[in-house]
């Protein structure tokens, strides 16, 4: 029964009386429940931050969902115009704060492109290792947390515990657990500490073991499968025009990974890795793809560690960084999807304009379409499976 075109209040009484008679006559009559507006967030544990969803409900079913964002808007595109290039590293660390290192890379690449300098091979390899480590850290949190959203508490503890090993590695190399601020235009601040590579190798074993655990604990769990299979299906033809990218799109069967398919960046052209896709496009397949990608990242890290070249970690750069006039678009495959910076320089010490294309913004913009017609409990699993970071939406 449609409730959107409900009768006006004046005739409500009459309708009620009529309905009661009808109910007497027919046992199976639907109750006229009327729409309910539910405010999910901005303070809600399932929104991972301050995402607010205004959900219109008919009983347990969502009629329409309108995400309200901007609670964490910090105006980074404006702020970049008031900063020098080295200072901007600090800002962009905080866009997607779970994988800060991966955020730095495209911006540094853009500045380096415009200046015509290239990071030395050793720096490129270390950047690749740290980018993949931040991907692993981000995904380990997801792998645990997604279980939590369907009521499984154990995977969350495992996820946080194993992520800590990876964060320790990042901290040992860069000095910061979350905000490494480690990239410099032309290379890196420091070389890797003594013994780090051996430590990293053993941690990758922990990560691969953790993935096996998650596969048994979560993917093999009947309740998890029941709650995620066939839920929140994004067809590839719908996801792409919305700008859904990364693992979310690969879980819809789109074989597209910027590490392989974009203009070559970092050490990826030298590496041998697989791009994982899943044909279903539901919440389950998004989990499945991220699980495989975590494993693949661990393999990429091990490959990099085997092939890491010796040499300097900084190219020769001037003391005061002035970027020649020009513009460039640099995109990378970040844990959450396509991250890109369109940097326009006018030859000053800071950029003239930076367009920050963050993954979560577009990934979440599909929610009004995706949540239409689903049940309230599934809203939570769909939100969790899309995996967004509020800083990455609001910037």
């Amino acid at each position, binding site marked *: 029964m449609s409730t959107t075109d409900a009768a006006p209040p004046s005739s409500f009484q009459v309708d009620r009386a009529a309905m009661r008679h009808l109910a007497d006559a027919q046992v199976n009559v639907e109750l006229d429940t009327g729409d309910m507006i539910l405010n999910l967030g901005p303070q809600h544990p399932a929104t991972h931050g301050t995402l607010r969803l205004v959900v219109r409900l008919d009983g347990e079913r969502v009629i329409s969902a309108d995400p309200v*964002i*901007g609670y964490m*808007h910090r*105006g980074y*595109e*404006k*702020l970049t*115009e*008031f*900063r*020098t290039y080295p200072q901007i590293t600090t800002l962009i660390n905080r866009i997607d704060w779970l994988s800060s290192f991966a955020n730095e890379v495209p911006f540094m690449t853009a500045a380096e*492109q415009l200046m015509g300098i290239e990071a030395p091979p050793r720096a490129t390899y270390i950047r690749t290792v740290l980018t993949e480590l931040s991907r692993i850290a981000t995904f380990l949190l997801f792998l645990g947390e997604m279980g939590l959203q369907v009521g499984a508490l154990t995977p969350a503890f495992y996820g946080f515990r194993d992520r800590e090993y990876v964060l320790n590695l990042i901290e040992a190399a860069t000095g910061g657990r979350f905000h490494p601020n480690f990239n410099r235009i032309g290379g890196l601040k420091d070389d890797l500490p003594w013994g780090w590579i051996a430590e990293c190798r053993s941690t990758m074993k922990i990560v691969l073991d953790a993935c096996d655990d998650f596969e048994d604990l979560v993917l093999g769990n009947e309740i998890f499968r029941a709650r995620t299979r066939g839920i929140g299906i994004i067809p590839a*033809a*719908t996801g*792409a*025009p*919305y*700008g*859904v*990218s990364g693992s979310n799109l690969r879980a819809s069967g*789109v074989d*597209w990974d910027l590490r*392989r*398919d*974009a*203009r*070559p960046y970092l050490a*990826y*052209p030298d590496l*041998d*890795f*697989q*791009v994982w896709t899943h044909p279903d496009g539901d919440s389950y397949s998004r989990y499945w793809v991220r699980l495989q990608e975590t494993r693949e990242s661990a393999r990429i890290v091990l490959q990099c560690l085997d092939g890491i070249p010796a040499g300097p970690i900084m190219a020769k750069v001037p*003391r*005061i960084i002035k970027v020649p*006039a*020009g*513009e*460039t*678009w*640099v995109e990378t495959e970040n844990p959450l999807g*396509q991250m*890109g910076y*369109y940097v*326009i320089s*006018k*030859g*000053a*010490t*800071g950029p*003239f*304009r930076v*367009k920050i*294309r963050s993954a979560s*913004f*577009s990934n979440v*913009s*599909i929610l009004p*379409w995706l949540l239409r017609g689903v049940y309230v409990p599934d809203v939570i699993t769909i939100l969790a499976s899309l995996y967004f970071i509020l800083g990455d939406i*609001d910037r």
Partner: protein
Amino acid sequence: MPDEPTAAIGEDALPEPNPEHEETLAILRDSLGADAILDQAEVFGNLIVRITLASWARAAEVARDQLHCDYLSFISGIDWQPAPREGDDAGGDTSSPVQPTETTYGAAGSAGRFQVFAHVQSTSDHRALTLKTDVDEASPSVASWVAVYPGADWHERECWEMFGITFDGHPALRHLYLPSAFEGHPLRKDFPLLARVVKPWPGLVDVEAMPDVPETAEAATSGEASA
């Protein structure tokens, strides 16, 4: 599978003229008309095409249907006018980088102050294209892409509130990030960064002379020129 990525990347790195870009341009020229394409540029392997305002809506359809660019990366705007720098004589906000005072336009040029630009990509053959169009300064307005790329919805709302550029045919141009009573368009260059107006940058207090004297001297003179 492992062999494929390296081959694809190697192809991509070939120097210009890029046959893929030539093909893209030919398709655009055929579908939009030769007059619709005002200028084109290739920067670091990225093709930028500047088209007329009238052909903006049609360009989205061509990009999706004929160039198979099914993926919308972003839509945003550019304000090419240099930011006014009041207070330069009093030392001003020297912590922010000094931009040149004359108006210059980026790759593929511009007819005026405001431009809208968008980046579309193909998930199947990995074609990518940046489209730019000039919008009128007095009443900036451009056709909406929502009908072609539903993801344009939020990007256009953001561009509308940040630059004041309206998108004709957009279902609901509402504020996205900012509160609904917000006045002004923050990403326009004449919109001041209020935090810096209210209180000078604290870093100014303990500023030391940079060891590289010629650089600071040059920055100071160019700052004075703008005042």
